[in-house]
């Protein structure tokens, strides 16, 4: 028989898959740091900082809500870049980064929606309003959930990677267009307190928990990303080992 079972195109370094590897230890380091930083930030924001004069205690949820959505955008930008890199280089490792980042992004967006909704209920008395920010976040959520679903329906991992990459690129290009459209449509939300030409209007002491939480979430993102990519690469490796011959039909 002439065949050799060398499927060289899907070879992965085995070391990254092992739980004791350097990559995994680094990930755990990030995880520990994330837990520490987030705990600090959340403690500061939820307990230490004085309650908002107007909105009361519920405003504290912003210390989680805002960093959450910002990190989500970072995650989706990473998906965008990884997708372009995948289509260019066809290295499945880029695809592993893309899908992992997308999953975390969806998680963070979900947290944003939930915290935003809770804040809304407390402030405006309703669980949902169609204001610009919430709507945009909901659209973002739907786009990337769609991304994950598209991938799950594709039969072949490479097709999933390819379709996903195209969708991720289109989706990311779409975001600014959505921003403009939805914002022109509605403006109930508080005008941005931080991203304003004159500089942040929030008092400096209140910026600290925001910054710390953002750092904490960023660390958490890196931790999840590293672990999830490792998982994905193990999955690739397993698929390679489980290759059955013929019978494609």
């Amino acid at each position, binding site marked *: 028989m*002439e*065949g050799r079972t060398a499927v060289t195109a899907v070879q992965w370094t085995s070391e990254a898959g092992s739980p004791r590897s350097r990559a995994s230890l680094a990930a755990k380091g990030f995880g520990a740091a994330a837990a520490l930083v987030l705990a600090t930030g959340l403690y500061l924001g939820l307990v230490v900082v004085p309650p908002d004069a107007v909105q009361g205690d519920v405003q504290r949820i912003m210390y989680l809500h805002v960093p959450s959505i910002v990190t989500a955008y970072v995650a989706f930008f990473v998906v965008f870049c990884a997708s372009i890199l995948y289509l260019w280089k066809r290295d499945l490792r880029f695809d592993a980064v893309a899908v992992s980042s997308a999953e975390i992004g969806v998680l963070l967006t979900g947290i944003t929606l939930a915290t935003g909704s809770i804040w809304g209920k407390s402030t405006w008395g309703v669980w949902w309003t169609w204001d610009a920010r919430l709507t945009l976040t909901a659209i973002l959520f739907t786009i990337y959930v769609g991304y994950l679903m598209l991938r799950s329906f594709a039969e072949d991992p490479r097709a999933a990677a390819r379709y996903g990459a195209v969708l991720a690129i289109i989706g990311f290009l779409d975001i600014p267009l959505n921003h403009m459209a939805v914002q022109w449509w509605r403006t109930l939300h508080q005008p941005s307190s931080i991203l304003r030409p004159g500089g942040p209007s929030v008092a400096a002491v209140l910026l600290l928990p925001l910054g710390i939480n953002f750092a904490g979430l960023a660390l958490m993102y890196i931790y999840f990303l590293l672990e999830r990519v490792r998982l994905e690469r193990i999955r690739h490796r397993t698929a390679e080992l489980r290759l059955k011959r013929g019978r494609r039909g």
Partner: protein
Amino acid sequence: MAEAMVDAQGLTKVFGTTLALDAVDLRVDPGEVVALLGPNGAGKTTLLKLLATAIKPTAGGGRVLGVDLSKGRDAIRRRIGMISHNHHLYEELTAEENLKFAAVMHGMRVDGGPIFKALTEVGLDGQARRKVRTFSNGMKRRLVIGKMLLFEPDLLFLDEPHNTLDQAAIALLNGYVASVAARGGAAVMATHNLSRAYGMADRFVLMRDGAVVRRVDKRGLSADQLRELYGRYAESAEAAGTEGVRQGP
């Protein structure tokens, strides 16, 4: 030594968890008709599609008509023809319209003249204005041959081309393949019809489960011997792996 029509090494294709093709080498010289023999799932169709650039290999590569598979896909597509059991014809269009459409998409500028000539040569001039939906399988296959006559490919790929054909169509098909080989072209035909293969081909490549198990020349081989070899190598599980005396490349 004339340049090979096909010169590929290590062609591998993975679909999800199925190894459809495992490091297959193939060389086809001008004037040759090569038959790929094997049961369903052997990888014959996958190999044809890879060489026809319809799909990309997971690993491996080579040259078709002197053009690199990974670089000159367009150049290859211009000079090959694929005849498969799927007709690739639009049922709602007439025979003439199907040819016209195919010709334009192929980049040819043709008016009614060459199209009518092609239809006449396959005996469909009377049915030129009838919708393909009304055609029998034999007529559809003849129309596909008509398409080939328009394109004049140098290399033919055939995938179970004799299925469901009447005698007249079979004769036309075999004659056409022979004519392509006679003028310096070549053909690669996948089939599990051993008698037809024996009648048409110069060389036989036996495949099983994605790999090549045996290669034989027709010289000095009787039809019964071919049948026996096929039964021994391509079909039985025990024989796989035994290295017998091999003839031919």
